[in-house]
């Protein structure tokens, strides 16, 4: 009847590829890849806008190479990259039906994401105080829009994974919740990849005078 079409693996006690064991799971999986395709053009448009307006209208002393705090950005990058790794470890635990490990790795992922977000808020606040604001120039508008969209994605990811964790805390891993965990981790990786581009295009290239 569609729900349990794949038999359980005798060792793990859940089906192999538990995230795609049902039609619903498969649907979620495919849909999420298409969604990420759309997200890609969303960020591509934001990057295009940013590149077009890079340093445009910014006063002397408020150009990208004057203001960016590379040390902090580097630490944030490391945090987010590590969180991608821990989310992979969580998914590996999920496929082994190791609920405890999965929860642990997810909580670490959340903590790293939260730390990243805190760093970003600190960074924005710092820029704001030296005069680089959303309305100070076209560059300011484009910068906060691109980086802020990414930050909002991180925030949404945190809320999403938290809700999943809380809701499924005592439910074990099932063919119903596994796809949800799985696509949320896909989302998390996507956020990470976008950040790599932000790090290169906004920050690294921004240091060039």
């Amino acid at each position, binding site marked *: *009847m569609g729900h349990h079409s794949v038999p359980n693996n005798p060792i793990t006690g859940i089906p192999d590829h538990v995230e795609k064991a049902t039609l619903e799971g498969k649907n979620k999986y495919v849909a999420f890849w298409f969604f990420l395709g759309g*997200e890609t*053009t969303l960020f591509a448009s934001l990057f295009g806008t940013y590149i*077009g307006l890079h340093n445009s209208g910014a006063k002397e002393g408020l150009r990208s190479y004057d203001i960016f705090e590379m040390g902090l950005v580097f630490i944030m990058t490391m945090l987010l990259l590590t969180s991608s790794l821990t989310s992979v470890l969580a998914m590996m635990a999920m496929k082994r039906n190791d609920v405890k490990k999965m929860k642990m790795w997810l909580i670490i992922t959340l903590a790293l994401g939260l730390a990243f977000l805190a760093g970003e808020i600190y960074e924005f606040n710092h820029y704001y105080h030296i005069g680089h604001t*959303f309305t100070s120039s*076209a560059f300011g508008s484009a910068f906060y829009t691109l980086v802020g969209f990414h930050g909002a994605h991180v925030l949404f990811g945190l809320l999403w994974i938290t*809700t999943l964790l809380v809701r499924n805390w005592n439910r074990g891993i099932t063919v*119903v919740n596994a796809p949800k965990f799985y696509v949320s981790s896909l989302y998390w990786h996507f956020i990470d990849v976008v950040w790599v581009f932000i790090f290169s295009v906004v920050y690294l290239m921004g240091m060039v005078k």
Partner: protein
Amino acid sequence: MGTHTMGMPKKKSGIMDWLTTVDHKKIGILYIMSGLFFLLVGGVEALMIRFQLIKPMNDFVSGELFNQLITMHGTTMIFLAAMPMLIGYMNAAVPLQIGARDVAFPFLNALGFWLFFFGGVLLNLSWFFGAAPNAGWTAYAPLSTVPESLGVDFYALGLQISGFGTLMGGINFLVTILNMRAPGMKLMRMPLFTWTAFVASALIVFAFPPLTVGLFLLTFERLFGAHFFDPAAGGNIVIWEHLFWIFGHPEVYILILPAFGIFSEIIPTFARKRLFGYTTMVFATMLIGFLGFMVWVHHMFTVGLGPVANAIFAVATMAIAVPTGVKIFNWLFTLWGGKLTFPVAMLYSVAFIPSFLVGGMTGVMLSVAPADYQYHDSYFVVAHFHYVIVGGVVFGLFAGLYYWFPLMFGKQLNEFWGKIQFWLFFIGFHLTFFPQHILGLTGMPRRVFTYLPNQGWETMNLLSSIGAGFMGVSTIVLVVSIAAALMSKEYVKRDVWGDGRTLEWTLPVPTPEYNFAQTPLVKGLDTYWLEKMAGNKTVSVSEEVGDIHMPNNTILPFVMSVGLFLAGLGFILRLDYGTVGLVVALIGLATTLVAMFLRSWIDDEGYYIPKSVIEEDLRLEAEKEAK
């Protein structure tokens, strides 16, 4: 299975059923009815435009009101009439064509509809605040960032909300078509309408996000003081144009490809002949979809991007003519050697070929960049895109309506009045838009609310306005005809056209909520036709009769959309009504978030229709057939 409730939930009645439905057939009807409503609204706007232009220096409307009319006409027709109606047909036909019991995400499907609907309502609410958007449907900055009028806020937020809905629809249909096909329904056996729905959905997924970004930038600029399009603060006005057209050109194909699909269903049916060059048609569809992303700059030839960019995009644009031409010839050779009959659906399909061809011809002419310097933003362009959008898309919408109406409602539109409606519309269409080519070439810019006498434009404008009157009368006939059909008690039989080729025509009338009592087994392209030719009354099945799993109805999609609607309205009114606006916005956002939370918290595993009910349905149907 133990966790699922076996008993069927109590049927909701009347309006609650429509507000909570997740059944693709009902959602299809909701889309089409809302689309038709907005078609009428956009039509009234069009008539007002043409009435204003019937003679030189007419003062029926002011320049400001005229700009609001053209903006709302374009926006309404594209986002709120044409696209929803096409998505309505996708809902009504695609799951049935591939032998599925529903779409992949019934909940998302309902949410997509309600988002579109409330986005449209928000946009049209602007009229009641005396401030409809006035910067054209293209909303070029910085005209669209002038803060004095609220109009563009309604545009940006209304389209944003309905755009989310469309994006969800796009993803849903991609997954439905990939994952929900019946056994044997290989990709290259799918009906062409399903194929075009697939490609159009892919275009939605990749083309809408740039619009989303553009609308965000516009909203940020208007509501929060950003400077993307403000040259004084380093902004660049061309960014909006790029983002808009990176979306806008694929949008044309989002509209026209499903219309192509509709014609590709109707022509073989009434020619009694399989589609000529099916494989080529599929690849031509994909190629058009792909090239659709490579040509947006042809809307911007006069922006000053330089001769190199203009030349490259000119040639890329010309390339699209090749797969489109292939399609035209394939339709012609489907007709060739067929046994043609001409119900209204077929009349529209046959009339589409030369009408759309003219639009395609002027399309190639427009791709010639240096010539476009003359055509651009003149009435020639207005003529061109109405030949494509009306002669292609609207003909397709009407053809689809006559063709699938019996499938959706179990009743048929009157053919006699349909033919009158067709001829009025066909004549009115050409009379309205053909003269506009000449107006453009003789120097009349588009979007002008009036014109001086003695510039050589009187005759053509008069003809054009008369033509619009014909189309108006035709639309009234259509509305009356639909109302009459809905009120009649005469139900049609299964396979109403007698020559149905695809799976949707194998279903009993009205279609049961679970669609297929037994999932069919597909044996080839036009599987129903193949079975008929083999002497079978209906198609083979791939499973025994059993319990059927169904999703539960839910009010949450409606609530979420109402929430976003309030949030949008609140943000817009924030400027004029201060705190009240902000409170409304926050209530709206909270409503949506709570509904989203409930959705992810409450387990909703649906219910089963027991085998006994299905068997009873099958028995009754067999009795009906025997009579």
